[in-house]
């Protein structure tokens, strides 16, 4: 089975935020929650770089390790998904996650957290594939339809890559060779151990 990975090519990302918008629209993400975001460093300076980031679906995922109710599971594709029926909105996965991926719809007073929401790699949740419940809770399950994540699919500069980690790495390597630079596959040494 393929090991799914995300990669954002910072030499190409133009901070258009289309991935953010596409994700929000595709999955009807709750109010106040963004599963993906673009971060620009050294904004406005010559060395400005932008990176689109969401859940990286880590190996040995920190979120999974600290969850008090153990509601995460890793799919055969290496995706880290979770069960909202079990999640208690404690926030621990957000404290532990290196990429700030877990988000919470605000529920009640004093910022009390609702059930956690994060990027699913467009692979839904534990419910039956493409069922109405899955759509309501986790958004669309594009993987079950044989498609890759929408954010990467519609990225205009093809900066954001998603798919089988080996293919993504090969593609990126060939770009770097042509470009004559250093391979900065951002976040991979934090996220992936396989």
């Amino acid at each position, binding site marked *: 089975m393929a090991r799914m990975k995300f990669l954002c090519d910072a030499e190409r990302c133009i901070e258009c935020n289309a991935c953010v918008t596409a994700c929000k629209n595709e999955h009807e993400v709750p109010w106040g929650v963004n599963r993906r975001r673009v971060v620009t460093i050294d904004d406005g300076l010559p060395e400005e770089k932008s990176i689109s980031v969401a859940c990286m679906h880590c190996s040995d995922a920190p979120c999974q*390790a*600290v969850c008090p*109710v153990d509601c995460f599971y890793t799919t055969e594709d290496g995706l880290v998904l979770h069960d909202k029926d079990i999640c208690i909105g404690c926030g621990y996965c957000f*404290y532990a996650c290196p990429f700030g991926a877990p988000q919470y719809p605000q529920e009640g007073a*004093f910022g009390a957290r609702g059930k956690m929401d994060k990027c699913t790699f467009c692979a839904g949740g534990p419910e039956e594939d493409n069922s109405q419940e899955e759509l309501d809770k986790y958004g669309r399950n594009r993987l079950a339809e044989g498609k890759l994540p929408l954010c990467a699919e519609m990225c205009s500069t093809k900066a954001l890559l998603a798919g089988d980690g080996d293919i993504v790495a090969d593609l990126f390597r060939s770009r770097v060779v042509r470009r004559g630079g250093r391979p*900065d596959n951002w976040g991979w040494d*934090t996220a992936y151990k396989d």
Partner: protein
Amino acid sequence: MAAAQAPTKRKKMMLWTGILMLVAIFTLPLTGYLATGSVEAEEASEATNPRADTWRQVRQGSEGYSAVTGRETNELIQGSGENWRQLRNGPMATYGSWLLVGVLLVLSAFYLWRGQVKMTHPRTGETIERWTVNERFLHWTTAVLFVILGITGLSLLYGRLVLIPVLGKEGFGVYADLAKLTHNVLGPAFMVCLLIMVVIWFKHNFLNRIDLEWFKAYGGMIGDKHPSAEKLNAGEKMWFWTLATAGVALCLSGLVLDFPNFGQEREVIQLAHVIHLITALILVAFSFGHIYIGTIGTEGALEGMTGGQVDVAWAEQHHDLWLKQVQEKQHSK
């Protein structure tokens, strides 16, 4: 006699110093652990390559700009989360369970060996007031809140290990949801009770020479000596000061966790969580001892906190200086 006592005294001192040092050795280095950025080894630096500089910046969690607003959305990688995970799931959970189970085992062993500390003189039938209605109400409200907070809090820490095998993930999820809500709502109520307690019982808790003597006689728990004590003995004073320090830290760190609406950053929350967990474990462990001594450990001790009255014979045995004070007051009236 005095010469024979000196070596055992020194041994006791050494034992306590040793224990203190052990505790410090385990806990102090952990605090610095959180502050260090990433656990990963820094890669060899290439100070002059501007692109490498950019990536180093990112790895070190420096901030950028993001059009997506929200909690720390402009930070790409935070390294302290992994440290927090290692700390919580590793040493804190492990040593915590040893501490709690260890204290329970020691108390059980002690009970088997010593049994209940009985009253040495028959009851006189004459009683004096030890705790007023208000004090008892405060004590039991705080105690009930403490037990509920302890159980719900520890369920979040150990439930995955202990309760999921029993209840299943769905069942535990339902319970944990309720436990979290209960813990978060009752926490501030406990804090109010604790603060009142600290204020009104402060005057009974100044440490002095009498307390030193009390410790040297092991509070009368070992052997047949009955050390003098005021209204509160040295053991009770230690419990008070633990509550007044670790307990207050527990409440304050709890508030940081309880109210995420003030935009506190993850590093602050992680630190608060570590403090909350360490102080919670210390207090729960200490409370086992407090409950043991107050109930099955000492004959007649519970009466003062339930009915408010204690027998004069009990007061003479356990709190002689306090009894004298009360009696003097009565005579002078």
